[in-house]
């Protein structure tokens, strides 16, 4: 059966360049911290990759801290900044986060509240899933001396809403508060300018742009008050110890260069496919409701993101039927054991719980084609009709079985 992959936001295939760079370094070997020739050679590969990642993000190489991925980068930012800001007798318990953060940020903040005495303040979002810098201004207006950090993602992973990062970072900076942004979904999809954004720290991940899984980076200004989470040999500016993963980083560097070079053309192509998907869905399933910004331009919405709620059905029923028909999609949120729950992002946007249960996200990437979109539009009407007949999980079964 022809398989159609429409879940690029979950992960995207490794690019040939990245695979080549990675396997080459695996064959070559060497510990980048060793002082001899093999070590120097490995270090050279890592530093070249650092330069490429920095260039792709308009940051300095010295600002790139390699991690095991986006989640570790977010953990380092949220906990590292919280502890850094509360070091030396300071008391800054307030942590400001948006209501639509990924678990990698939201769960860090909740853990800090549960175990470290933090107080979480959430920025609301509008029905499109966007934060308003005026809300941040209001939160910080009464005095921000006790605020440890502010964190708002660059663009939301479920509904693709792009956030006004530069203005939010400006408000935080004016109040003297470090600003973190989770840019995992935006890297490779939108032009990212770390210096221009005014952010203190920014998290990115390799496997969303064609690098292997298990590598990512936290971009942090030289003065970011970061406390280390992982202690040891002092690698990566002494905030992220552990033998540097030269092969994965080599792959990350290659993928970052490709992403930067091809970004404008590729994101335009992908946005074109996505627009066809959204238009086609309106005809194929008129009941489907597009969630997230209705304006599809890339200043508003991630180019590869299309997200709908399908009334009267469970997202997991629809996912199952699409999977059986060869189309791979996502309900948009999943926990470890694979049980979909109503998305907290949708709930924060004011979507009702029943509607939120019918969510389905389709995300396009560099491997996507027009045929992929056509195939989805071909199979979705029947899948929706059948998923609807299976009903909602919270409804009592019919009398047929009693």
């Amino acid at each position: 059966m022809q398989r159609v992959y429409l879940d690029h936001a979950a992960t995207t295939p490794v690019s040939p360049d990245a695979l080549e760079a990675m396997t080459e370094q695996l064959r070559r070997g060497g510990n980048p911290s060793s002082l001899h020739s093999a070590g120097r050679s490995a270090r050279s590969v890592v530093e070249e990759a650092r330069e490429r990642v920095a260039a792709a993000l308009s940051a300095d190489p010295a600002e790139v801290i390699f991690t095991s991925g986006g989640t570790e980068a977010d953990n380092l930012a949220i906990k590292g900044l919280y502890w850094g800001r509360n070091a030396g007798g300071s008391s800054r318990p307030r942590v400001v986060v948006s209501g639509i953060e990924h678990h990698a940020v939201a769960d860090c903040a909740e853990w800090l509240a549960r175990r470290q005495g933090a107080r979480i303040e959430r920025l609301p979002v509008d029905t499109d899933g966007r934060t308003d810098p005026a809300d941040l201004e209001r939160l910080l207006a009464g005095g921000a001396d006790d605020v440890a950090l502010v964190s708002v993602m660059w663009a939301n992973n479920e509904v693709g809403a792009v956030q006004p990062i530069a203005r939010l970072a400006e408000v935080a900076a004016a109040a003297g508060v470090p600003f973190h942004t989770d840019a995992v979904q935006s890297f490779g999809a939108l032009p990212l300018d770390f210096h221009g954004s005014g952010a203190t720290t920014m998290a990115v991940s390799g496997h969303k742009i064609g690098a292997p899984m298990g590598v990512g980076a936290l971009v942090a200004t030289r003065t970011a008050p970061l406390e280390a989470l992982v202690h040891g040999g002092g690698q990566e500016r002494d905030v992220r110890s552990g033998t540097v993963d030269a092969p994965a980083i080599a792959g990350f560097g290659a993928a970052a260069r490709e992403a930067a070079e091809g970004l404008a053309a590729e994101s335009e192509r992908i946005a074109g496919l996505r627009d066809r998907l959204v238009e086609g869905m309106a005809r194929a399933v008129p009941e489907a409701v597009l969630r997230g910004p209705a304006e599809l331009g890339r200043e508003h919405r991630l180019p590869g993101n299309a997200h709908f709620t399908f009334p009267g059905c469970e997202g997991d029923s629809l996912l199952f039927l699409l999977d059986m028909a060869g189309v791979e999609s996502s309900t948009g949120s999943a926990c470890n054991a694979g049980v979909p729950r109503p998305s907290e992002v949708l709930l924060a946007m004011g979507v009702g719980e029943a509607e939120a249960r019918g969510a389905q996200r389709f995300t396009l990437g560099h491997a996507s084609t027009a045929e992929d979109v056509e195939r989805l539009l071909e199979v979705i009407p029947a899948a929706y009709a059948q998923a609807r007949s299976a009903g909602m999980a919270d409804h009592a079964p019919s009398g047929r079985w009693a």
Partner: protein
Amino acid sequence: MRVLAAMSGGVDSAVAAARAVDAGHDVVGVHLALSRMPGTLRTGSRGCCTIEDSSDARRVCDALGIPFYVWDFSERFKEDVVDNFVEEYANGRTPNPCMRCNEKIKFAALLEKAVALGFDAVCTGHYAKVTEDAAGNRELHRAADWAKDQSYVLGVLTHEQLRHSLFPLAETPTKAEVRAEAAERGFSIAKKPDSHDICFIPDGDTRGWLEERIELEEGEIRDTEGEVLGTHRGARAFTVGQRKGLSIGRPAADGKPRFVLEIRPKSNEVVVGPRELLAVDEIRGIRETWAGEPVEQARGFYAAEEAAGTADAEPSEPFDVMAQVRAHADPVPATARLVRGEVDGEPARELVVRLRESLSGVAPGQTLVIYQGTRVLGQATIHRAYSLDRPDISV
């Protein structure tokens, strides 16, 4: 046939799914997420799923090369099984949550979703057998291995449900053989211990769990003559047949231990007496269902009800059955009839079973399953049971 294999992560459902694959069916594995309460998890993540069980089921599906999904039935499970369990106890009854889960979740909510999504049957690792006669009528029978037989907990299934049920472990001589087969197939769960008791009470302390959820009020303990013997901490915390925890100051006149004979939730009274009075020889059940075609005598009764009006129908002709009141109890010979009677002051249809040997340990809320030979005829929920010598004392 398109088959949905319900996979708990245990060895029985794994081997059942494997046999369904071997039989040439198009099989998809589904693990049901039933709990959100962190206390019920062996290992937890956001309190919504039993990670280890789900992962075990997933690995079996990997080995079988079949798709695997996790479906969330936690809301329905809470409402139909957990809340019902608490409510039944609060009303002085002793429910069986596994039967309730079969009736409301596995062979109702899950089956309904499966059929709607294009499946023909739900396959489980229950030890029981479904047969079909020339006319296409299904019957439910005990499994080959009587020691493992689970036909009792499937007694609630109706003909429509049996038409969509597949029990590939029906003919397995012993559980040991299922484990051997799992090992042979390379399943990592071949040696996983059997699950026990009630899945949503992980430490097995049912009374403690209930006492946290049921409001208790002090009340009187009486003997069968109505004399007050002492006070208790709440009638709802007791079960018929219980001996411990009565704390009656005075010993019985004959010095013998006393047992809970009856719980009266409305007056918050507990009636106690000697063990002999726990023995019953007539059981009255309500809300009867038939696992396939009802017996001839029952069909006659339903026809009479329709013809004469429900209030005036004469009792049915008696029919011989074997009656079983608990999952692992021995069945006893009995005669059954359908009658028009009264339950809580309302006219109702009752299944009245007169036992040829008396039984102890019968409590309201339990399920009475009736058999003929290996065949499960059907079931009813017990609302009253008593000794014909003392019909005034009713468990």
